[in-house]
């Protein structure tokens, strides 16, 4: 079964692959098959159960059809044979800033990571290509017993916790892309919060795609034990390059009794990235899960953060924004599955389409039989910047219980000539006025973000408005 190491790292032999514990410089070939999966698992020296899991998942990936609701030419254009499924840009992994390679540092400097780290972050897991290069946890977190590492390390050092929870929220067979991720996953974050521990500072990771035709398949697992709280933030940017790139993450959250998880994302992938992400949370009794989800970049995003409310009194919230300009399609939404009585959910979705961009809200609210006292509120607001742009809403409600209150409200508005004129008449240029109007539209989302993210998002919107006006 095992493949010789020389086969794994043939081009990079000179970098010392033979040191079992040292890092490798390894570049996989394009395409996906069992050999690649075996190489990845071998490289990572994973336990047999994970290796078996990967192979099984790959078979599921091959067998699964593309998502049925997404029969569009953009998705069909993905050539799975033309993608690298595992790469690493750095040979090193460091916990201190000094140990991080120079070129990577420069990139992170522009993203402001060191300052952020100093100011209020508990730990930084910065994913560069498929591997974690920088990772620190503040001592107080360690003292609290909080585990925060990349997923590979989590598996290595806390195999029991990982094995108990991994893929229990999102099985490989959930969809084609979750199967793919399960087969080739690398990196992502692993967080475990002990019972009753309140993590006061947001834990944060930056993800970054950096090599051409490179796929990123990070795998994040967050487990909040009873009565604990954690806020995790991921922000994504990607540098410019020419051909399509696939990003397909799987994120699993488990909020046990009375626990509270908030998961904040801002993705600003470059406009050639396919961002096909499966995000799902389990909320047990009286648990509270919030997805705060911002989608600015990518060519196509398909992402529907979900909360399965499996314990009585559980609460799920999704607050999302999507921005689509020329050539972009943000197919985003949310799913709330009420599988216990007296559970509540709130979905707030706001989207802006500009320059022929397309946004879709695709949502599901499901209430199982016997789940009385459920409350759900869904609100979707779309803003169209011009007649070429498009916005669609596909809400689904499946209610099989009595004594349930499910509300849905959707609006589509246009940036009016009068509104623009009004703001411009106070001295703002068309770009400034448009930026202000769009930022105002996103305000309910932005005000939920930590300050530095709010500033960054407002700046992104300003850059987008500059790029597409005049």
């Amino acid at each position: 079964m095992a493949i010789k190491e020389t086969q794994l790292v043939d081009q990079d032999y000179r970098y010392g692959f033979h040191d079992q514990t040292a890092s490798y410089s390894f570049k996989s070939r394009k395409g996906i098959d069992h050999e690649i999966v075996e190489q990845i698992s071998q490289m990572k020296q994973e336990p047999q159960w994970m290796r078996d899991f990967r192979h099984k998942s790959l078979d599921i990936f091959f067998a699964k059809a593309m998502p049925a609701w997404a029969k569009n030419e953009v998705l069909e254009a993905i050539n799975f044979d033309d993608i690298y499924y595992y790469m690493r840009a750095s040979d090193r992994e460091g916990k201190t800033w000094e140990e991080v390679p120079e070129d990577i540092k420069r990139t992170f400097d522009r993203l402001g990571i060191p300052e952020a780290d100093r100011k209020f972050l508990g730990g930084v897991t910065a994913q560069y290509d498929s591997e974690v290069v920088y990772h620190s946890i503040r001592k107080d977190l360690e003292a609290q017993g909080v585990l925060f590492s990349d997923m590979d390390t989590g598996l290595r050092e806390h195999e029991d916790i990982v094995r108990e929870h991994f893929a229990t929220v999102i099985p490989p067979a959930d969809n084609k892309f979750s199967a793919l991720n399960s087969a080739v996953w690398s990196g992502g974050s692993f967080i475990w919060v002990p019972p009753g521990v309140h993590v006061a500072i947001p834990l944060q990771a930056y993800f970054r795609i950096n090599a051409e035709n490179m796929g990123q398949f990070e795998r994040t697992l967050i487990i909040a034990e009873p009565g604990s709280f954690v806020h995790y933030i991921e922000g994504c940017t990607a540098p410019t390059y020419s051909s399509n790139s696939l990003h397909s993450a799987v994120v699993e959250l488990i909020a046990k009794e009375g626990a509270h998880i908030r998961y904040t994302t801002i993705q600003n992938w470059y406009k050639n990235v396919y961002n096909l992400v499966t995000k799902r949370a389990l909320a047990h009794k009286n648990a509270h899960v919030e997805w705060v989800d911002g989608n600015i970049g990518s060519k196509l995003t398909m992402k529907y953060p979900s909360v399965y409310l499996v314990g009585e009194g559980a609460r799920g919230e999704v607050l999302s924004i999507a921005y689509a300009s020329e050539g972009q399609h943000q197919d985003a939404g949310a799913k709330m599955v009420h599988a216990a009585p007296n559970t509540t959910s709130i979905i707030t979705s706001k989207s802006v389409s500009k320059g022929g961009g397309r946004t879709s809200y695709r949502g599901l609210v499901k209430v199982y039989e016997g789940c009385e006292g459920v409350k759900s509120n869904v609100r979707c607001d779309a803003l169209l910047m011009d007649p070429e742009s498009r916005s669609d809403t596909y809400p689904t409600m499946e209610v099989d219980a009595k004594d349930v209150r499910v509300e849905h409200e959707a609006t589509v508005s246009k940036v009016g000539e009068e509104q623009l004129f009004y703001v411009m008449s106070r001295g703002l240029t068309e770009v400034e006025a448009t930026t202000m109007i769009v930022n105002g539209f996103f305000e309910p989302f932005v005000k939920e973000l930590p300050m530095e993210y709010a500033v960054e998002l407002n700046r992104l919107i300003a850059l987008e408005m500059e790029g597409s006006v005049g």
Partner: protein
Amino acid sequence: MPDIILQIKDLHVKVGDNEIIRGIDLEIERGTVHALMGPNGSGKSTLSLVLMGHPKYAVTRGDIIYQGRSILEMAPNERSLAGIFLAFQYPSAVPGVSVANFMRNTLMARHKGDAPLTPAKFKGLLDNAASKLQIDPKVLGRYVNDGFSGGEKKRLEMLQMLVLQPTLAVLDETDSGLDIDALRIIAQGIEAQRSPEHAILLITHYQRILNYVKPDKVHVLVKGRIVKEGGPELAHELERTGYDPIIKELATV
């Protein structure tokens, strides 16, 4: 020699194929308040929007000279930065943008390149204007015109005027739809703006506001033309007789 702030020359304006302004000549000197009165549909609001540069209206003939140069080619924001202000009859809402944030942006647009606007200075400007108009400081945290009553909207227009201190303020029916107390506050705002440096064009349907703000000159606009001009007494005459005698007079000419 009077310092002419605004000079409108033989102005003709169309919306689509419809000519709404049909030859207006008007001069406004620095330090004066002019009232422009007229019945509904006479072109009052159109004139105010044309002065601010609304893209819907096409100037087909004539010119608008502001402080010695034509502004016809200037965008609304350029006109604003040059010192022209329009208090809208129907101000738009800007959801998600607080009044304070909105005002900071409008002031920052005026401070590009110079000394930055300090938070303390900004707060001083805003609080001062708000107190003159008896605006609750809580309103400054609300989103611009979002869910505002008619009276609140008008007061917010006045607030913006007092903060921006325009050279030429055009007030489009700022007095309409107000009760007597609100009217008095608006009038106080206008009086606060009045100065030897500024000029004000007060557009109104009713004479009522002119009991509080005494104009230097009154112009009557009917069917896109100024048909009568005079001093403050003209407003009183109109209040008594209405616009009908003037309209009839025109019909017989």
